[in-house]
């Protein structure tokens, strides 16, 4: 039985998106192709969530095409500190996003296209989707040497990864999404996907790094638009539907009611960092203070992105033990985050004894701790 509100949601999306030229088509083998007008990674991920939660895919599958401005996207169960250079990303204003599907970490920019295949759980088939993409690429440029591996990657020239895959399965629906490198900035890609954080021990899903190449390098005449078009064409053919790409605005609440809440949730600290599986850090570093170099050993346990336990080993009496333990207690329960740690350190430095020497030692130690985040 179809319930009124559900019908309303589907109808809203279908009515607004359906082209008048299509007429009244039988939707039994329907395929709807939509493309996002936004380059905001959070808005686009929210569209995926919305379709996954609200659309009835029994009679109609959906292909969603999207591109993002520079962002690093980690998998559902990954550890951002382990996967990417958060410090560099903050400096370069590259966003961090955590998607709801599994898999590894990828770098997105406007030279990369994202494809999401929505089906019911029964019709979930990743290999078929990837073969569709390969078929589209070969139809566009027959000389391209591309194939799908067992790990659901697409390789160029049997060597270079041009596409990675991830998937999400819910109660009734599922989606499989993948990237496709057309003309992304490989230099930025390799520098942000290299983590500078040492000594992390975690059960989070690790990424498998691979050599990548842009399709543009193989054939400079290729653009993202051409690739999107070719893939849409192939999808339309296979689903016996109109090759018509309908544009969708991820900020439109009338078409996608509740989307702005989903977008907001994807940007919260609790989702981005708090969902990191429990991990520990065990590392040492050198501190240069006046004329000497000191060895410092730090051990921390981080759960839900917050510091559960912290232990600092310093050379004897460099800091009074009482002061050191006060400092450490200060951070207990706070976010493993440079901004918050800096604020707490500042408050601590205001109220601790104002001996200049002690003050500058504490300050130096805090700065180094913040570097770990």
């Amino acid at each position, binding site marked *: 039985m179809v319930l009124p*509100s559900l019908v309303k949601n589907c109808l809203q999306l279908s009515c607004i998106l359906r082209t008048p030229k299509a007429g009244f088509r039988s939707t039994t083998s329907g395929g709807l192709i939509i493309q996002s007008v936004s380059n905001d990674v959070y808005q686009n991920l929210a569209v995926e969530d919305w379709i996954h939660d609200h659309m009835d895919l029994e009679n109609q599958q959906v292909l969603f095409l999207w591109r993002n401005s520079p962002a690093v996207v980690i998998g559902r169960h990954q550890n951002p500190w382990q996967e990417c250079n958060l410090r560099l990303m903050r400096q370069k204003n590259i966003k961090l996003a955590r998607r709801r599907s599994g898999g590894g970490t990828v770098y997105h920019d406007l030279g990369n296209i994202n494809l999401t295949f929505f089906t019911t759980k029964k019709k979930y088939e990743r290999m078929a989707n990837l073969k569709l993409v390969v078929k589209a690429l070969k139809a566009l440029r027959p000389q391209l040497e591309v194939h799908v591996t067992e790990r659901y990657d697409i390789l160029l020239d049997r060597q270079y990864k041009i596409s990675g*895959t991830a998937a999400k399965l819910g109660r009734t629906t599922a989606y499989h999404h993948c990237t496709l490198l057309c003309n992304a900035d490989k230099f930025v890609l390799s520098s942000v996907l290299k983590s500078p954080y040492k000594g992390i021990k975690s059960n989070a899903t690790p990424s498998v790094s691979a050599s990548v190449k842009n399709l543009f390098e193989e054939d400079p005449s290729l653009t993202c638009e051409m690739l999107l078009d070719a893939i849409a064409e192939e999808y339309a053919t296979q689903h016996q539907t109109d090759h018509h790409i309908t544009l969708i605005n991820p900020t439109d609440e009338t078409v996608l009611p509740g989307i702005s809440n989903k977008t907001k949730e994807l940007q919260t600290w609790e989702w981005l960092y708090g*969902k990191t599986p429990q991990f520990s850090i065990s590392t040492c570093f050198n501190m240069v203070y006046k004329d000497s170099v000191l060895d410092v050993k730090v051990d921390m346990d981080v759960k839900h992105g917050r510091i559960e336990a912290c232990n600092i080993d310093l050379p004897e009496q460099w800091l009074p033990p009482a002061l050191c333990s006060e400092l450490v207690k200060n951070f207990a329960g706070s976010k493993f985050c440079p901004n*918050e740690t800096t604020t707490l350190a500042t408050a601590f430095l205001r109220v601790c004894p104002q001996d200049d020497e002690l003050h500058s030692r504490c*300050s130096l130690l805090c*700065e180094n701790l913040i570097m770990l985040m």
Partner: protein
Amino acid sequence: VCIHHVRSCSSIRFVRPKYVCVFDKSAVKFSHQQRLFRTTAVSCGQIVQFKLSDIGEGITEVTVKEWYIKEGDSVSQFDSICEVQSDKASVTITSRYDGIIRKLHYNLDEIAFVGKPLVDIEIDASKGVAPEEDVVETPPMSHEEHTHQEIKGHKTLATPAVRRLAMENNIKLSEVVGTGKDNRILKEDILNYLAKQTGAILPPSPKAEIIPPLPKSETVPAAPKDKAHKIPVPVSRPIVFSGKDKTEPVTGFQKAMVKTMSAALKIPHFGYCDEIDLTQLVQLREELKPLAQLRGVKLSFMPFFIKAASLGLLQYPILNASLDENCQNVTYKASHNIGVAMDTEQGLIVPNVKNVQVCSVFEIASELNRLQSLGSAGQLGTNDLTGGTFTLSNIGTIGGTYTKPVILPPEVAIGALGKIQVLPRFNGKGEVFKAQIMNVSWSADHRIIDGATMARFSNLWKSYLENPASMLLDLK
């Protein structure tokens, strides 16, 4: 007989929360109590092993990545139970039954097997709805049985169809007002709730007139009920406020503020306030703004306030000092590191401009720009945030006139600036003119600073700002 069972079970349910309070330590103890009750009354619970269903693509094993529930929690059908991962696919496993979680068969990061038990759920035997193999495909609309459901101790009655409608629209049943018998939630209630959310207008419900009178009718406001109208009037229903108190631990920025302000309590504060006529300064800034813009710097009023404060501190250095813990020594700080309070998304931060005594107004403006952009991006380092000796807080950008600022230890004074208002004032000739008036509120540590010092400093600062040309005489 069936109904009798239901009644007994529900009374046990009501009692259970009390037992949770008393015997909250050992789960074993708790379930023993449960069993005792059960054997003497009615056998209600039935432990069902919920098996991990097929995920597709021939996958046989997955890793458990996150549990959404723990042993002892109540779950409803379609609630999320856990997140598992298999080869780049993340799967949300939802419950097939209503009941209580009795056992989790796997720990985090363990491998779970398709077809093997995932969790044990104790279901209500009085339900009479047989667990279906694939509930998702055919919602049991033919069963109009009313299923009891506990959401955190609050009983909610709703048919499976209504629950599915709520779930599909991401609505918590506990937030919906039920208008059916015994506060049962009807389909109309969900639709009305949705209408309020999206502002959509729904067609009038044909059942509106036959809703039975509610038990709490005394509290219903006397709204005129026009019997000819078919559209349900929400006002006639008792207003149920389902908001709950929320308790959170104090961490992060809040914790930092608690620490700082608790220490500030030890300082005996006194306040001194005044009003400043900024008419001339407003004009000067208008002239200088484009010049600064050409050099790539945004010029606000703060650089002038900061520089004037530093000039004042040269004459009254005790305001730029620090008192040690035992109040035995006063340290006169050589550098004027003037802090500027900033309001960011996360909370209050106070970066400082270092060595204002040797900076020009333009240099201060430039440094402020840098601190502001780092501050809003959450990227300020300890170097910029520590070492302050005196603070100014421009709360006037948000609003307000006079305030009572709190000194930030280890400093001894702070000034808070209100908003600039255009007010009528008398000039030297006794004429009324339009003046740009701003209020300043100083607080100082009365252990080492007296009222006279503060007043004189404030007067000097005020004179620099009311007559900016006079700053030229003393600029270093």
